[in-house]
């Protein structure tokens, strides 16, 4: 009797072992691979039930009227702030009772003041943000309770909450003082930089999902381009001598590889841009005036391995997505050796990266689809916010305590908006 039980136990153990091996082997043969970042296997987490967000009702001059003045804000790469607002309004994580909310969201569209060319001007943004914060601190008690430590803001502009497009000016300004304690959701990310504060959530820039879906080609089209890039190498208007734009990295790529048949690089923007990316193995994502660019999103969606040339960059959702395993990182000083670096990557590594990129949850995490779908960038932001819960006791101020100085910052910011 006992012997039989031992045999049964042994049999069960062996069957479990073989099952495990079988599953792993099956996984190896699949077209995709699971993605686990430093926070674990969190890309497919569902934030519903893990946090509650209260959306402030601001007068429409902060959001709707601005959008009405210029509807181009819905299609440019900073459109995440508008779509995040719309998503939160109809999301199950939204609560109408601010007492039970974990996070508070202020819908202010700071990146919607566009030039005729479509580039956003950040000069009024600090005043706009300040005016919005003044409004919420006077009308609701929740800002003063924590001085913003449980509030989050979406600031997708070039250098985030530094509100300037030129890096030196942005560094000079620093992050808006009133946002010192709040959580910032921004596209800019660079380590040890003034404009990236600890605890910020980096998101991808907005890329229109329908436009990308419309340009998909059959997956059996052979990838015959080795390296692909389309964009400026020299910004002749703003930096005529070169060396400033992209810290000279893009110009270096051009000068070193313009004659190389493996590199399909040029400034001409063809109509088959998306189709060409799907026929390429590597897509260059070098920095421009700011280190981030929508090319990363496009490369991920089209299965092209991103080659990131931006020192110390922090990529979107860096704790959920293991970018080191998915993309190739090249230091700016190594750009002249780019061809040697790329050709010396072993083929198993390249195939593995392509399998990781083929994972649909990876592509979904980079997009802002309308309406929202599970696993997309909106949900990743909420997951990131949920991972920061619960707030620690330093967030809540004791009565009478005040940390923020409402008159700090450049004098021009103090003017009412």
């Amino acid at each position, binding site marked *: 009797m006992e012997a039989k039980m031992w045999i049964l136990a042994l049999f069960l153990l062996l069957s479990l072992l073989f099952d495990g091996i079988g599953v792993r082997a099956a996984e190896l043969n699949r*077209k995709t691979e699971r993605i686990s970042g430093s926070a674990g296997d969190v890309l497919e987490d569902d934030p519903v039930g893990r946090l509650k967000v209260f959306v402030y009702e601001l007068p429409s001059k902060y959001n709707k009227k601005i959008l009405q003045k210029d509807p181009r804000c819905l299609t440019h790469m900073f459109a995440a702030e508008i779509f995040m607002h719309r998503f939160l309004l109809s999301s199950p994580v939204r609560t109408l009772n601010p007492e039970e909310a974990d996070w508070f969201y202020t819908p202010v569209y700071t990146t919607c003041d566009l030039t005729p060319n479509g580039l956003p001007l950040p000069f009024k943004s600090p005043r706009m943000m300040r005016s919005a914060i003044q409004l919420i601190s006077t009308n609701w008690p929740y800002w003063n309770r924590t001085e913003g430590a449980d509030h989050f803001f979406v600031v997708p502009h070039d250098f985030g909450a530094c509100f300037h497009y*030129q*890096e*030196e*000016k942005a*560094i*000079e300004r620093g992050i808006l003082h009133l946002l010192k304690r709040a959580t910032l959701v921004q596209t800019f990310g*660079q*380590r*040890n*930089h*003034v404009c990236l504060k600890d605890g910020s959530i980096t998101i991808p820039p907005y890329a229109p999902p329908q436009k990308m879906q419309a340009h998909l080609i*059959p*997956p*059996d089209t*052979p*990838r*015959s381009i*080795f390296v692909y890039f389309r964009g400026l190498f020299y910004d002749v208007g703003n930096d*005529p*001598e*070169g*060396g*400033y734009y992209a*810290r*000279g990295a893009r*110009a*270096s790529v051009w*000068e*070193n*590889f*313009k*004659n*190389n*048949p*493996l590199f399909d690089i040029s400034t001409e923007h063809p109509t088959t841009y998306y189709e060409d990316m799907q026929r390429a*193995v590597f897509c260059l994502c070098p920095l421009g005036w700011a280190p981030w660019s929508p090319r990363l999103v496009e490369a991920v969606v089209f299965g092209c391995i991103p080659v990131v040339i931006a*020192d*110390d960059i922090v990529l979107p959702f860096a704790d959920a997505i293991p970018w080191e395993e998915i993309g190739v990182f090249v230091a*700016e*000083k190594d*750009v*002249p*050796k780019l*061809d*040697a670096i*790329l*050709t*010396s*990557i072993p*083929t198993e590594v*390249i*195939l593995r990266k*392509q399998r990781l990129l083929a994972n649909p949850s990876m592509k979904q995490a980079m997009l802002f689809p309308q309406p929202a779908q599970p696993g997309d960038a909106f949900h990743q932001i909420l997951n990131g916010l949920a991972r920061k819960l619960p707030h620690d006791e330093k967030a809540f101020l004791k009565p009478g305590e005040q940390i923020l100085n409402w008159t700090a910052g450049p004098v021009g910011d103090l003017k009412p908006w």
Partner: protein
Amino acid sequence: MKLSALQPIRRANSFRSPSSAPLDGGAAPSDGPLFRSPTAIFWLLLHAICCLVSLALGFRFSRLLFLLLFSPSSSPSPPSPPVLLLHRRPDLPLSPHPPTPFATPNATGSRVVVGRHGILVRPWPHPNPTEVMRAQRILDCVQREQRLQYGVKNPRPLLVVTPTYPRTFQALHLTGLLHSLQLIPYPLTWLVVDAAGVGAASNETAALLARSRVPVLHIRFSGRMPLRWSDRHRTEARMRLQALRVIKERRLEGVVVFADDSNVHSMELFDEIQKVKWMGAVSVGIVAHSGNPGMVAPQQLSKEEEENSPVPVQGPACNSSGQLAGWHTFNSLPYVNKSATFIGDGAMVLPQKLEWAGFVLNSKLLWEEEEGKPDWVRNLDEVGVNGEEIESPLDLLKDASFVEPLGNCGKKVLLWWLRVEARYDSKFPAGWVIDPPLEIIVPAKRTPWPHAPPELPSGKVATSQDPLEKRSSKTGRSSRSRRSSRNKRKREPQIDTHI
């Protein structure tokens, strides 16, 4: 110009130390009358000297000087002097790794420096062949993986049927087809039906096929290739039938493709035909204007020819539900007076209504005693006997409505039909090699070829075999040989070369 261009960007840098303000160009000194105190005059003079030196050197010398003089030893070295290292030095990292020059309150020091950086160019910015080969291997690996995952699972072998005969352009066409077939990733057998006849000519095809890396089945055909195009089409059909009989006898398995030696095939064709179940049809583009382009000037084309589609396409036509509804055939009416009648004629060669190249079939259709063989196909032994002429593979079937349209229901053109032949009397050396090399090369004053057409149907045009007139094989158009003879005239002595 450079200074003024630098200034607006650089102005922020003046933040670093208050005493740098007087040295910055353009920053007006805020103090009172300068011209009184000697120190002010001294600074002004120093500023002027620095400005002049900067103008000469081309960068902001004053800043460099100030930094060298006034920066304490413990502070980090400044960002690179604004010199473009374009095309000069090898990878000298001009952006060193000091912490940022801006005093950031809580940053521990980033490696990234704001400011102007040099553009690093390596001394030989050209591709390295070893790396190109490695990249090629990577691409091959990636494409193989793609084919494994998204391509055809369980590919069937191909049986490629090609009728050919020795002639001037045979080497050209067969080599082209050979290279196309070598690129196909599926196992294939090439059945070459050769209408060579006896003599030295019969080994020419064999010599060409000896270079093949794909397995070849060289089938000899007993007839000769006739001179008229209409006869040639019929002979080719008979040659193909003979290949089909060989497939039937040996029970070769796979998908039968009719690849004529002068046609152009796209690689997607061979992926697409793997989908065929029994018999399929693809769209064939017709490149009918293979005649001398100089002879048919564009403005002579009639209006109706221009209104026709730019490239005629033959193939299946589908109805809206994707099923075979009919056939797009070649409309030969506009070309009736201008088409070629015999091979080597200078005019356009027209295809038949439906070319063999547009059809593929499963070899099991030809086998006898095969289970699952559909009943709408005729027995191969009954086809072609008693003088029956086969025009297209549809004659192999009892019912043509079962043909499957391939290539997105015929919307994708996967191969191009073309007939290009040298002039009927062109001579060419065996293997296209003149061995031993010619001793006497004589320039032709004008084209020696007569314009009289040959005698039909049998044969050879009589050309004189004057030993002085040995010339290397060229199928020149009359204008071209005249041009070359004019060039050669300068070099060689004049010899009259009449026929």
